[in-house]
């Protein structure tokens, strides 16, 4: 079965990226990673991550040459320890006093852009193609300028709600005014989201380098909003489907023999609803990938991304099914399928023989990379 979106290829067309990883090979890496991480209570995890990244990088080919990841597990281990300390600080602060908890949260938010900035620098500086290293040259100020609006956008509605509520002691009655303010805040957040996410993408792409060559990002804010509009329509469609699913679950619930087992129909109904909502992810991911990469150039030569939402949805749906049926052991195979399609739908119009090394290469510590991961920030925007 071919899931490659590029059927016709001539030398004047863009050169495709190819992913050569296989489920059976990756399964070995994956299961050993899990087992060793479990046995060492997590200490092995940096090594596991490096093995995983090296496998993904090493099996991503452009013009028959693979990419390479150079990150050191020890650097990642240091990073994990830092992340662990932050986690402990966060969880302990709440026990001591609410004030302290707020302080810790504020500090975490304040350093988050710095951590993400470091993680990008680390990731790119430790990636290479044909012996030439990548770099991230975005400034720290730029990182803050890009991230603070995003953070405010995400936290804003909650902050508004808290400010308008009568207090923390008895959330019995939340005034209509507070709910109204909350609703408005959410609306504003949704309206600015495309703009802020666009700025994030632009920041990441514009300051990336490969050797002496530079990446550029030429999407417009208008394009971002058009994309957002399309995603919104998709969301409407999915919500309609999940309402139908919930209704179906409710209809089953009112059947006469479901009296004492009242949880089951809800369960089924909400499971179907969940699946419907999960569908948004592949549908959005394909379009986001296309938008991000069709508007990116390296050395002035454009990339091309032709991922199809429907195909990706099909892959994710069958992956989920097989995953559930095999109690999770299908996971590595699922990952390979997905990567093969997503990477395979990318291509570049430039000539891979024309990259040259640049003068400046630095060494970046790893604390950023791991902390960003541990707090769940796998920024796949």
């Amino acid at each position: 079965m071919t899931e490659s979106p590029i059927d016709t290829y001539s030398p004047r067309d863009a050169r495709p990226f190819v992913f050569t990883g296989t489920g059976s090979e990756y399964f070995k890496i994956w299961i050993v990673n899990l087992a060793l991480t479990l046995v060492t209570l997590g200490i092995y995890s940096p090594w596991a991550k490096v093995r995983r990244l090296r496998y993904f990088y090493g099996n991503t080919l452009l013009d028959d040459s693979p990419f390479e990841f150079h990150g050191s597990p020890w650097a990642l281990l240091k990073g994990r320890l830092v992340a662990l300390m932050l986690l402990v600080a966060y969880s302990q602060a709440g026990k001591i006093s609410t004030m302290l908890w707020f302080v810790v949260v504020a500090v975490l938010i304040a350093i988050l852009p710095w951590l993400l900035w470091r993680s990008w620098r680390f990731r790119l500086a430790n990636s290479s193609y044909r012996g030439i290293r990548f770099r991230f040259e975005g400034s720290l100020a730029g990182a803050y300028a890009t991230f603070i609006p995003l953070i405010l956008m995400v936290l804003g509605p909650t902050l508004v709600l808290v400010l308008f509520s009568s207090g923390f002691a008895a959330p019995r009655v939340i005034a209509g005014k507070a709910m109204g303010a909350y609703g408005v805040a959410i609306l504003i957040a949704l309206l600015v989201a495309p703009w802020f996410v666009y700025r994030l993408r632009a920041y990441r792409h514009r300051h990336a380098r490969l050797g002496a060559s530079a990446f550029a990002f030429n999407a417009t804010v208008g394009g971002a909003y058009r994309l957002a509009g399309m995603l919104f329509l998709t969301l409407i469609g999915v919500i309609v489907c999940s309402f139908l699913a919930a209704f179906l679950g409710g209809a089953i619930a009112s059947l006469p023999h479901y009296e004492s087992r009242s949880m089951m129909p809800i369960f089924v109904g909400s499971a179907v609803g969940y699946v419907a909502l999960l569908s948004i992810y592949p549908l959005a991911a394909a379009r986001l990938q296309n938008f991000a990469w069709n508007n990116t150039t390296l050395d002035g030569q454009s990339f091309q991304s032709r991922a199809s939402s429907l195909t990706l949805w099909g892959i994710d749906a069958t992956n989920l099914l097989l995953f559930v049926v095999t109690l999770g052991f299908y996971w590595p195979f699922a990952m390979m399928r997905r990567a093969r399609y997503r990477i395979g739908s990318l291509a570049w119009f430039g000539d891979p023989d024309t990259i040259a090394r640049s003068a400046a290469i630095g060494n970046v510590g790893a604390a950023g990379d791991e902390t960003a991961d541990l707090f769940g920030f796998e920024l796949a925007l």
Partner: protein
Amino acid sequence: MIACRYFDGVSSRAIAASVVATNDGVRITGGGVDRIVDRVGLSFAPSRGDAPSRIAFDDGALCEIPDRAAAESLFAALGHRADFGDRIASRRSTLALVVAGFIGISAALYLWGVPLAADAITRGMPAEWQRTFGVRVLYALEARGIFQPSTLSAERRDRLRLRAQQMKFVDERPTFDVIFRRFKVPNAFALPGEFVVVSDELVALAKDDDAVLTVIAHEIGHVAHRDAMRGLMRATLLSALATWYVGDASTIAATVAGGLGGLHYTRHDEHEADLFALRQMRANHVSTQSAADLFRSLMAWRPTMSVERADRSSDVPPDAKKEDVKKADAKERVRIPVYLSTHPATEARIRMFESGVASDE
């Protein structure tokens, strides 16, 4: 001599070359390149599929070898050893061992590790915490209208509370607080923070105070054993385990796994609470016969038989059609499980309370 593509690390232009092993390193020749590099300055990246194998040099140059088998033997000749993880995975026997071991450890975690950890965490948790948590849950349920103020007579409530407080306790006396609420189905449960919540409907179904007292004693058992918090911890740990196992996707699978797994444990807790109640009632010379009758009534209970029909008027207008009333019923039934779906309702249990003797004593 193995064909390879050489990159000098300065430009990405490929140079067709050959690589051969020397006494203590490799030699690359071809396309204007002739270099000998000692083993020390090399790192090897074998491939396991269609991607080329690679030799990387200290100065950033690298050599791609498309022929996998040739590369493997070259690397082996140069003394390259795969990392620990790869060595385990490459042999069938060790791989099978790893898979079996992983399944075994996961099963052990699920069966013993998680309950032990949940127990330890709950025991280490300050009582003040649990109480705050319980208070919040209570407020949340009240704010949503699921719990409404009790309509029992103050006299009846006080009497029941007094009897509960005055019970003689077999072991150390637990701290508890009995509160009554109306929640449209007969049920009783223990919240973290030593709250025992009893519904008006359950009291209405009971013939006498003894039955209610037995149920309260059962719930106090849960309080004494900190079951509510422990159950929550179990569920949380399980879903955390499931999420970690699954990675960064499929939260639905993780939630499902966590939820379903958590159900398995409560049977044991319920039985322990039953034993607690039986011991208590015996020590206080209270018959558990009426409790057994109460359980029988619960098995036959349907919402339409509820004494408090007036409740429904808050949801459905008085002139509502029969279908709407039925739908409202379905919604109510759905909001809180009837007593029996969270407590085992086997005949054996009923008989146990009839006789007043535990089945395994």
